[in-house]
């Protein structure tokens, strides 16, 4: 480096500053939210439901938002996973005619680039149609409420679809051709090869995609605000055991943070910051999980895996 020109040294310094700067910012965000929220964080909060109360002390915890977040992630991934797998497999393994394959890939790109507020508005427009009344509730006045876990979950699956699809497609594309050829040589059909050989081989890519999808789901606010109905607790609708929960309304950690912090009505900022710390902890945990999966895959297959960063 002593022989380098000044300009090069400047650029190198810039690269170091950029890389370390981003890490510092990440640390600063986590530390600041931690400092704001950890003082109010009690283990009890995680197990208490939100209560109505006039003081922050009596307003309970965020058990229902936690349950809501988990439920929503579950619904979103359950809908997105089959779609993403089918699409990725079809595009990589079949993909005929090629213009159709490009259409599907572009559609997924468009979904990836659509702002979540637009997806939320679209969801509201669809689920307030009479046709989809079973998925939320039809009120006594005859109108369809249109906001429920199914509505939010269906739109969330659109959010989780692109990461899942990209991860699976990259995994399938980097599977060596000889694995397919070996299966064909043994007389298996294409679909059987996919089911028995290829998909199990990209399990860790799918896991990475699922984790990334889940982290996108739990970080989204706009869809929740418009489509989940904004009740503090989980309010099931009807009496069929599981279906009533899906038709009902509730809240998630993001909407809880939003509503109680200065972004919303700001009446319980302490609880909001504590919930924000929990939310960040979840996100951190999911990221470590992606890292772990990536490292396990690299050591297991011996292949250099340059992917799985997003």
């Amino acid at each position: 480096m002593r022989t380098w020109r000044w300009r090069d040294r400047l650029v190198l310094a810039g690269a170091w500053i950029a890389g370390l700067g981003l890490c510092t910012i990440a640390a600063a965000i986590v530390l600041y939210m931690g400092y704001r929220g950890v003082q109010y964080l009690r283990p009890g909060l995680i197990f208490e439901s939100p209560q109505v109360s006039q003081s922050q002390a009596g307003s309970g915890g965020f058990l229902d938002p936690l349950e809501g977040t988990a439920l929503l992630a579950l619904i979103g991934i359950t809908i997105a996973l089959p779609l993403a797998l089918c699409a990725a497999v079809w595009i990589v393994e079949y993909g005929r005619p090629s213009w159709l394959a490009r259409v599907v890939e572009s559609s997924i790109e468009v979904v990836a680039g659509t702002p979540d507020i637009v997806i939320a508005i679209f969801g509201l427009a669809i689920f307030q149609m009479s046709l989809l009344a079973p998925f939320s509730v039809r009120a006594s006045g005859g109108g369809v409420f249109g906001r429920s876990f199914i509505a939010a979950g269906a739109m969330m699956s659109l959010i989780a679809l692109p990461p899942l699809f990209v991860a699976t497609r990259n995994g399938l594309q980097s599977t060596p051709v000889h694995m397919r050829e070996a299966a064909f040589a043994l007389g298996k059909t294409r679909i059987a090869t996919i089911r028995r050989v290829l998909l199990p081989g990209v399990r860790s890519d799918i896991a990475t995609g699922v984790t990334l999808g889940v982290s996108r789901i739990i970080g989204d606010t706009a869809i929740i605000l418009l489509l989940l109905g904004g009740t503090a607790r989980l309010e099931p609708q009807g009496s069929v055991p599981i279906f009533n929960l899906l038709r009902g309304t509730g809240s998630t950690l993001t909407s809880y943070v939003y509503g109680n912090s200065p972004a919303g009505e700001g009446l319980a900022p302490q609880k909001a910051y504590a919930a924000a710390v929990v939310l960040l902890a979840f996100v951190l945990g999911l990221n470590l999980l992606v890292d772990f999966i990536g490292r396990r895959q690299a050591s297991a297959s011996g292949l250099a895996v340059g992917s799985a960063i997003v």
Partner: protein
Amino acid sequence: MLDRLRRPWPDDRAERTLGAVSLLIFVCVVAMVVFVALRAWPIFAHNGLSWLLPGGDLHGQITNMVNAPANPPPAVYHLRAWPLIYGTLLSGVIAVALGLGIALLASIFIVEFAPASLRRITIPTIRLLASVPSVIYGLIGILVLVPFIGNHVISASEKASVQTLVQLNGTGVLVSVVILTVMITPIMVALICEALSSVPVSWREGAMALGVNRLRAMLAVTVPAARPAIVAAAVLAGARALGEAVMIQMVSGSVFFSPKPTDGVVFFFEPLRTLASTIIDYNDGVGAPALRSALYAFALLLLFAALTLSVGGYLVKLPLRKYQTRG
């Protein structure tokens, strides 16, 4: 029939089923465009395309829509939403430009110059930045950045200089662009890193064998080879920047105002509003027919922008095909 499902399927049926399921996604996108366009139609019917242009008092127009009766007269639909489009483009383009530069430098750092231990920390940390929810970015904006800039950076004379038009209290272009850049840079870092590390090392080594230093080798050999990925990263980050709503709503100042670059430094402190933040701000009023069409028109514009970015990215990548190193 159940064991007909359980037996291995013939390939053509599998292909058709998989293709049909994949097409569902396309149907979804088409449905989205159709629904949003249908609801946005009244604005186009009453304004043509001129609602994209400046003219008149946007706040007055929106307030008229809010207060309009159930069957609004045509005059209520009058809309000139240029300040919002300008705000969206301004914040988006600056954020993407800044972010691209930072992302490129950071990716070069991670791929080439970071020691292995530092690389193991940096990658997950940057991925964490990408998954922080926007409401937390917004909170940090209004709790930390906005008071700091409003009370310590903007001087009283600067505030006085524009006080008849707008007020400068820390929210505005600077905070919005800074936080937006922080939000989109990790996405670009991830994609560019992946592309840089998939360029064969031998290409760099060849350059270095000819006497080029490591940095120059990266910039002259590896980075151009990764150009398709850089374009893809910019497209994805651009789409994200255009559509960011919750965070911008909290830190942008929420005024229908077009910041003027000719104001000098004050330009960075002036408030703005974007299409997405307006949709969130007024999402209450989605029952007033005229306001609803306006909000859906904004959503259609955002959708159209995402589509254009996608197509544009594809077109830019076409001549770069020969550099594609991934199979």
